[in-house]
């Protein structure tokens, strides 16, 4: 099971749970599973089927270059984090 770490400001939707286990093979499935359990969380994470502006997802510490299409391994750690720019 992949472990999804819930951002602090979304824990109001997860009964204050800081992490959740899901069975999913892509980030899109991760979000769909979260939505099933915690209605409303999907629209906080995505917009038009893509991750929201300035949001990225990290799988096992690596920024997912494919966004919601990125594959998720069974024991992966998933974090939703601010997108990083550079100068």
């Amino acid at each position, binding site marked *: 099971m992949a472990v999804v770490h819930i951002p602090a400001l979304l824990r109001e939707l997860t009964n204050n749970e800081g992490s959740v286990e899901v069975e999913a093979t892509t980030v899109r499935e991760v979000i769909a599973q979260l939505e099933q359990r915690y209605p409303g969380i999907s629209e906080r994470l995505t917009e038009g089927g893509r991750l929201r502006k*300035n949001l990225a997802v990290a799988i096992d510490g*690596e920024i997912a270059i494919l966004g919601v299409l990125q594959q998720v391994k069974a024991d992966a750690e998933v974090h939703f984090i601010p*997108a*990083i720019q*550079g*100068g």
Partner: protein
Amino acid sequence: MSYQVIGTRPVRHDGADKVTGRAVYGADTQMAGMLHGHIVRSPHAHARILRIDTSKAEALPGVLAIVTAADLPHPGDRMVDLGEGLTRLSWVHGNVLASDKVLYAGHAVAAVAAANAHIAEEAASLIEVDYEPLPCVLTAPDAMKPDAPLVHDDVFMQEFGKLTDTPSNISDHFRFEIGDAAKGFAKAHTIVERTLDTSTVHQGYIEPHAATVLWNNDGRVLVWCSTQGSFVVREVVAAVLDLPISQVKVTPTEIGGGFGGKIPVYLEPVAALLSRKSGRPVKIAMSRKDVFEGSGPTPGSHMTVKIGVAKDGKIVAAQANLAYEAGAYPGAMVGPGAMCVFAAYDIENIAIDGYDVLVNKPSTAPYRAPGATNAAFATETVMDEIAEKLGIDPIELRLRNAAKEGTRRADGPKYKRIGCVEVLEAMKNSAHYQAPLPGPNCGRGVAIGFWFNIGFSSSCTISVNSDGTVNLVEGSTDIGGSRTSISMQAAEVLGIKAEDVHPTIVDTDSVGYTAVTGGSRTTFATGLAAHDAAKDVIRQLSVRAAKLWEVDSELVNCQRGVFQSGKHSITFKELAAKLEETGGPVVGRATVNPSGVGGSFAGCIVDVRVDPETGKTDVLRVTSIQDAGKAIHPSYVEGQMQGGTVQGIGWALNEEYFMDPSGIMKNSSFLDYRMPTALDLPMIETVIVEVPNPGHPFGVRGVGEANIVPPPAAVANAIHRAANIRMTRLPMNPNAIMEEVWR
């Protein structure tokens, strides 16, 4: 691993053009029939535009076109990808040419194209704009007050996708939490909390923005400009003008510095509109005043950082509250700042709140490790104070808490292989840190910092010439010697000399999509594309060798430019001479969008002398230490470290947007905006640390940014030891220092 090319110091491929003045920069573009553009800018920090009358300017002989926001297409708002992330098209529109309101002094409101620059300037002065001045707000703390004037009426605070229901100058609030900060602080032996401020500063690139555009008769928009990302310009011009991207072709000129500030687009859509109206190519070049007032500086910030430690110095809890000034449109890069504020340390209990705050200043742009320098100024100042309170050497305190592989960052993910400990050990063992201070009123300060670096897409092709050289085509604007660092990676794979690779940076029609030169990504990602394209060349040449020898190509191997199979052997150069007889040209290609990005830690050691009577700070000795992963060309790595360090010292001691209460910048020239020169600083010493990034075939991490992060805090800590004052705002100029001395 031993290399033939990587780690050597060949002469840069663009060196001759640059030292002889032949290199063509943005403002050097010349064309038959070319007109000169001039932008009319707002004299008010916040005002409603009541009327724009262009009739007098239109009547001036030599004027061929005038445009305002009314000339921009308005296809409706949507999100656009600007190369490093999404933003609202209406915000891009609004910053290119203001429509109903101006949001900062310097905001573009109209533009004129004329036969020469003098007529254009005169015509611009004849454009009459009636304004209704509005109250302005200039700092994050003021802008966050409930009764503050609103910069935008239609921006609502967002908290992780949830919009609040009243307009606000806080466009975004987020929080990171791991562990339980309150419980952690309850166990602390010593707690230090400081509130610190930093001023708005500019990247200060020497070359002002410049763009030339021809809206051709066939409908294509041709752009020549100084930019960090030609494909970003293509995206933005197409989005703002509501064109398909294939209708826009962007040719990057040489670039005289960017540091993040030449990622946003300002002039190109305006020059395009002027070109369409006039039927002629139009060049617009900013003045230095335009650059300061009309392009994107980096955010000022208001920060509170609190750190609690056990008796042995181990951090038990940390808390930060960061409010960054976005300027006129959202996007202050407070997110990355918050991700970096405690990134150097292994801490179990952390709470961080970040606020992206609108103010009536120019819309901010990235600046080397955007957001991280502000944050490190806060954290590293507090760490220095803790070291002093506990009587622990400041580097030793950092080593006791240093982040390592497996450390969980405040934003959640765990680090892979990183070089924080190695950087700290290099600092501790450096000749500089071991040396005594030179005399009275002197102090030594240290600090460390982190930047993530980024990956993103890059493309590259390599064609083999019959004389054994290759032509390398890529799309990354060369700011700091990247032609050479990219070519060296191809040369290493091909087993040829760096000088035998001829790199060319081409337009957006001539190479696959390549993201910006920014985020310390170019040597990492475009270098990886060059590596992969060179591997493709080797694969193809192995087939050619196999043909010559009548063997299976799988049995051909290539080591350091020599192809072998059994008793057969041929060099790269010899095989290149046989391309025609073995099947024709060989072109290798690669596109990448890599994961495996390796973040970089940097440290800074600074010695200063503070004049107790004037508050003037002399920088006596500086050492920059950085984990490069692998230094492809050590001279360019050292150059990046020195450049970033100098900029950090300028940020520390002198630089600021000095604004009057009405939001007018009073120092928008290099005479009054005091950047350090060669006369102000000693030679910056460098120590390159190499902890290879496992995500790159040569171990590259990228070195363009982390080096700017620690200097402001290191200088502040040095001033503390020299003058026994704890500076909590930047810049630490003589006025600020004497105020603190007399406090």
